[in-house]
């Protein structure tokens, strides 16, 4: 469903270009959920943005749904790939009601039955009709993220790109959103590509996990292998250790840092 072949993504051009992702190759089958983990600056969000067509890529090929896509996407290609961002406080227009937020993609893509689609999208993400005419500031963080998910779903995409969809949320709300995403994936046969720094969150939703560091995928493993500590790369081990919480016995390792 998603295939990246030797994709290199750079910000800027010429000698000052910063290469954020080097020669990345990754394939996601239809209906599969794949996660990308890594620390800030590792390029994981950049990959999502390039797949969504938000930023150009320098070289390589991106294939979505069996067709190679160009930098300029057709309406149908954009409809097929939708994205949910990290911060539901920043990704929703503050001066538009939920109704307006959901009506916009319907209008842009000239879809029929706008009214019915909005009602259905809200119901699918567990929001009631009473939320439809509210502004984002009148909603909680979890409700806002539901609106952002509804906005992506209303176009009936086949691919959902999730950029840290729960990291701005409380633990109890995170569980609700993760359950919602799992259900939507089952019901709609969605292909998911999710980015997070939280290994447990990724492993909960995704079968396969790519570990990124400094613009490279250093290892592609599975959630099961991660859980059983069967990983090969040192960096992945380091991530696993850090995710397990604070370990006083192992804490003395490499404390020293030099100035960047």
């Amino acid at each position: 469903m998603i295939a990246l072949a030797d994709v290199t993504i750079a910000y800027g051009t010429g000698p000052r270009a910063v290469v954020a992702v080097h020669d990345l190759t990754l394939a996601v089958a239809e209906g599969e959920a794949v996660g990308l983990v890594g620390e800030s600056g590792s390029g994981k969000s950049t990959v999502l943005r390039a797949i969504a067509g938000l930023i150009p890529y320098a070289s390589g090929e991106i294939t979505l749904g069996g067709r190679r896509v160009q930098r300029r996407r057709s309406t149908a290609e954009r409809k097929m790939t939708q994205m949910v961002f990290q911060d539901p406080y920043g990704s929703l227009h503050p001066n538009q009601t939920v109704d307006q937020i959901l009506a916009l993609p319907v209008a842009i893509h000239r879809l029929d039955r706008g009214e019915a689609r909005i009602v259905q999208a809200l119901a699918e993400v567990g929001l009631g009709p009473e939320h439809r005419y509210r502004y984002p500031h009148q909603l909680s963080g979890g409700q806002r993220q539901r609106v952002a998910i509804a906005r992506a779903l209303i176009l009936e995409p086949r691919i959902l790109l999730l950029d840290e969809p729960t990291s701005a949320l409380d633990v109890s709300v995170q569980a609700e959103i993760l359950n919602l995403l799992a259900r939507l994936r089952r019901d709609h046969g969605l292909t998911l590509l999710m980015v997070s720094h939280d290994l447990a969150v990724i492993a909960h939703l995704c079968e396969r996990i790519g570990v990124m560091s400094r613009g490279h995928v250093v290892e592609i493993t599975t959630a099961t292998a991660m859980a059983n500590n069967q990983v090969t790369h040192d960096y992945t081990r380091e991530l696993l250790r850090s995710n397990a919480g604070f370990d006083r016995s192992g804490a003395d390792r490499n404390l020293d840092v030099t100035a960047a």
Partner: protein
Amino acid sequence: MTSPLLTVRNLSVTYPGDDGDVRAVRNVSFTLGRERLGIVGESGSGKSTTGRAIMGLVGHPGRIAADELRLGDQDLRGLSEHGFRKLRGKRIAMVLQDPKYSLDPVMSVGQQIAETHRTHLRSNPRDARRAALEMLEAVHIRDPERVYTMYPHQVSGGMGQRVMIAMMLIAGPDILIADEPTSALDVTVQTQVLAIMDELVRGRGMGLLLISHNLHLVSSFCDRVLVMYAGQVLETCEAGKLAEAKHPYTRGLLAALPQLGHRRADLPQLQRDPTWMADLV
């Protein structure tokens, strides 16, 4: 048992709202000795407000009331702003979430650390500089001389937080309040920053109050944990035994966490019981 470094009894913080007062913190009591005490809770539970109340940072129109709020043998209730200024940095210090916002962007990090030394210990510039360099070394920065002259935008998040810790500890406070000190950092860096904080706080026999939403982190790092919900402490338990917590809220939170190696189709969602909101006395 020696007398606690910090005693808090029935602390309440109230903000006036449109529909009557909002009680952000309700009758919170605890003592802090030479230990690591964690406060966990979700957003809005009052955990940060508790920390700020101890620092005297609840501004108008918020109101603080307490039966007892004592730092060692000093009563903090009704202490003037001038009085608090002498305490902050000297006897209680606070590390906040994001060093990008808590460091002064137009002053080199070394000067900022030295300034704390000069203010509280009335030292001369040369001594302050030497102390700041020693402190940078203590937080495991390899080339202190170079980092001393760097500005906050030139250092990474992890190093920025080391600088914050250095600045907070240079005047030798009794208590460090760390409010989500590692939430803005990458997981691998988090562990390093925590290890440094642990080393210094233990080495100096200080008390540490760690405020966080991260249950794993608090239970693996602290000695004791207070669980806050809607402004109250619902439960206090030994950190290592958080998994055996009794209160349904704590249990619900733990269950709602996705776990590596324990995959479930659906995560149990927290069912909030309205009785948790009622005043506990």
